[in-house]
């Protein structure tokens, strides 16, 4: 894969070991779900968003790559902070570990908190409530203007069932690289725009969680 083209936006995904970062990205990019080997160091994907190129960087969750994650965060315009909805420890790591790593990212970096493995979640017995998640999302993005977002940068997803996956990226791209109505029309044939329309319909379902 050639990376010669300068990307217009860098998106990085962070989170503890085995929370499903690579699965989330693969679900979005390839539209498939497969078990993954642990990521070594980092991986890289390129995505077209209207006229823009978006570089999506997948990092390794393992602690020993922390130094590298820091490096790969540099210049990131948006970060996905992933945690396992079934494990409160991974959620706490977000507070403890990854907040500081993101100092290397752009100052106005959008941080999106994403809970994964929703399909495994027992709704009646949750360790982490959506309110807690949203609270973290608000705190991490204190420097940003919430009015430009349709809602808090918090999502609960499942890469297995493809629930809310596209919406996460949609949210990020829409915030960081807003397309004009004309551009949307021009690139409207691609799957990208269809998802926007879908996401409008599904907004209520996302809110209720």
């Amino acid at each position, binding site marked *: *894969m*050639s*990376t010669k083209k300068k*990307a217009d936006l*860098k998106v990085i995904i962070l989170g503890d070991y085995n929370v499903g970062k690579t699965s989330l990205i693969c679900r979005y990019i390839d539209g498939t779900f497969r078990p993954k080997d642990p990521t*070594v*160091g*980092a*991986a*890289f994907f390129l995505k077209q968003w209207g006229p823009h190129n978006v*570089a999506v*960087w997948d990092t390794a969750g393992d602690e*020993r*790559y922390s*130094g*590298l994650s*820091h*490096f*790969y965060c*540099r*210049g990131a315009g948006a970060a996905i902070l992933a945690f396992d909805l079934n494990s409160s420890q991974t959620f706490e790591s977000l507070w403890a570990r990854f907040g500081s790593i993101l100092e290397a990212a752009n100052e106005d970096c959008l941080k999106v908190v994403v809970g994964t493995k929703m399909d495994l979640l027992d709704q009646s017995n949750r360790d982490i409530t959506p309110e807690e998640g949203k609270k973290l999302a608000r705190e991490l993005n204190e420097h940003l203007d919430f009015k430009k977002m349709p809602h808090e940068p918090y999502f609960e997803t499942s890469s297995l069932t493809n629930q809310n996956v596209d919406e996460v990226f949609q949210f990020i791209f829409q915030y960081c690289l807003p397309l004009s109505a004309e551009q949307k029309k021009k690139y409207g044939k691609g799957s990208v725009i269809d998802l926007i329309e879908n996401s409008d319909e599904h907004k209520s379902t996302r809110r209720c969680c």
Partner: protein
Amino acid sequence: MSIKAFELVSAIERVKLMSDKAKTQIECLDVCGKNMYIGTSDCFVVHYSIEEKTQSNGRVTFITEKQGHKFLLVKKPVVQLRGASALNRIMVLCDNTLTLLNMFDLEPIVTGAKVKGVVCFCINENPLRTNPFSVEICVALKKKVIQLYTVTEDRLIHLRDVNVPDLPLSLGVDGIFVCAALTSQYCMIDMDGGHITELFPIDSEQIHPVIKRISKEEFLLSGPSALGIFATSAGVSQRPPMQWSDRLTAVCFVHPYILAMNDEFITVHSILDQQQKQAIPFQGGVFLGDFDGRIFVASGREIYSLVPIPFEKQIQALLADKRVTEALDLARNANKTGMSRDKFLKMFKTIQQQAAFIEFSRQQFDEASQLFKESSIDVREIICLYPHYLPAHSNFTRSVPPLHEIADINQLSKSDENLKAAYKDFLKTFLEEIKGTNFALGYKREVDVALLKLYAELMPEKLSELISVDTGCDLGDCVEWLEKYNRLHALGLLYQRHGESDKALGVWTRLVDSQTSDPSFPGLDFVVDFLANLTDHELLWKYVDWILEKDEELGVRIFTDRPTSEAQSERLRPEMVIDYLHRFPKAIITYLEYLIFQRKLEKEKYHTHLAVLYLEDVLKLMESNNVKKEELDIARSKLRHMLQMSNLYRVQLILGKAKEKDMHAECAILYGKLEEHDKALRILVHKLKDYGAAENYCQLNSQGKEPGYRKRLYHVLLSVYLDPSYERRDTLVAPAIALLNSSVADFDTLKVLHLLPDNWSIGLLSQFLTRAMRMGMHNYRMTRIQRMMARGENLLVKQNFIEMQREAIVMNDEKTCAVCNRAFNDSTFVRYPNGVITHVHCAKNKYVCPVSGKLFSVGKR
């Protein structure tokens, strides 16, 4: 995922190397053009000449010869050594001191060009200044300082300093940016502002830090967990990391491969997909470097070169392993190896084609199709894989060297019918896509023939479109093929397309006669239409019989539906056709109707013939019993219409027959044609008692005739009504009165009065008489008015004439024409009402004055 990208070739063997001291080991080396410099562990610099020879079998060998050596007097190993051929110098780092030596005699330069306390140095390959007689270097000092120098023949000119927080271990430089490995981390240093960007931490105890400049502003660093990490001078990464082996000691780069060395192996990685491609066992390597695209590697006492396998070979090896994506990736990057553009494009196309056939053989049809198109393949290469699909007499041979090893699709599908169908489907789709595009240019026949064969086999419904729209199919083996799959209609169309009407008709007659069902065949109508448009009339006659026997009403359309623009021909003269059609009663009627009503031929013969045929029809119906009345009515009304409409038939002939059979209505019409109105009207009034028809008769027969004729006709009718010799004349009084009072009828009043019986009361006639009076008065007055108006008009004209003549015009030599200004030579001239006088030939328009353009009244006569 291995590939052989490099081959290890010995360059200098140990025996030749240097002093025989057992401890002597190679530490570092550099190659400048044909010179190789080697730094040893016991403080020698050795100079060799080295020349590369390519043997006829493609193998590369090296011829080396020792040129000299120099002992540097400190008994410390030579750590780093770089040649600067532009300066005729080599830079040597030994005992933490950087010095310059003469490139040829290896004598030190003793002008004080020396830096002490140096850990390592490197040359800036993207220098800030462009002086070709200087070299920029970056030096890391023990005292935690990084410095930039410009090196000239005899001096080291200090440019900049930047302090770093830790001891620098390794360096890379590009422009103003220095990438440095410190004991605990990598960092990027902007030498201009002294700004240090931390990249990532390392444990230099565990990892030997390596920095390799890859391209402008991009470095490759050895990171934790044996990762190779890319970093730009902006401090970010634009490529994902690559996985190396542990205990890495050196890295070099020749596009598109990165070579990494540890104690046991040299591994080759592609920068394109970050994957390892080759592993070369190499024990105890101490040095690895690339020098202008050449790679040399040294163990303790021996030097080898890693000779790149030519791209073509690598790609062919990948293709042989069916690793299409990698091969194409590699091929795309091959143009960076200095191949000319044309040569590259040619090679790349061939590779794409080979790749396409590999995808094809794996049923990756989308990829194959795309590659076939991109590489603008000769479409016959594909078609020839399908046995018998190329035109039989095609002299195509597959390209040499072969693009693939596929015999045909039977071999690929291994008699799996589904697979075979998939292959055929692919061919169909592919050909449909390229049909009419540039890809098919010059191969129209091949493409169309293959499509025809496919359609015949799989989708007969598409055949007619293929054949009828500008087809490239020739007759050749298509005929055989269509016969084989029983696509007879398509075969007929193909013959038609090639102007072989006779054969086409032959096929269709066969199709009709054999009753075999070809769903695409529209039936007998189609054949009739075809014959109706056939220009070869000789051929037409050959099939007329056959068609008419099948269906005469349909068949006669061959003669009646001829194209209007068709020229008349002897073979289709109406007489000929009529003679022929005698056997077919229905057909002949239709044909005569066509001649008379549509072509409006006015020949007595046709008209009489048709009238007689109609009459015969009617007679036949009358004779046979249990015929429905409607049927008879229709037949008779047809006959009547014919008799009424036409004036050309022989009336007497028909009349005789009609009288015989008491066909009164017809007789009436016929008498009318003979102008025997009395007889006609008597039939209408006495026999048919149809008074309306009688009045209608008068109306109809007086059409287009002078008013007197009309009056006469009505008078005849009235006299028939009032005929005293008719015994039941009482019944006719009412219609007579009605006729008199009718607004349509027209009479000569005086004659009527004579005719009327004396015993009729005035009351009975009052309406008629009043009307007649009024009419008379009206005519009288109208005539007077007309007379007076005509007289008035006459007066006016006279007045005008007098006025115009009143003024005399004197014509003499001085008078000239108002238009041409020449004298009048003639006695005639033109005078306009406003007095303008011109020649007769100059007066173009008598209503427009030629001088003033005044328009004179046109209305005044």
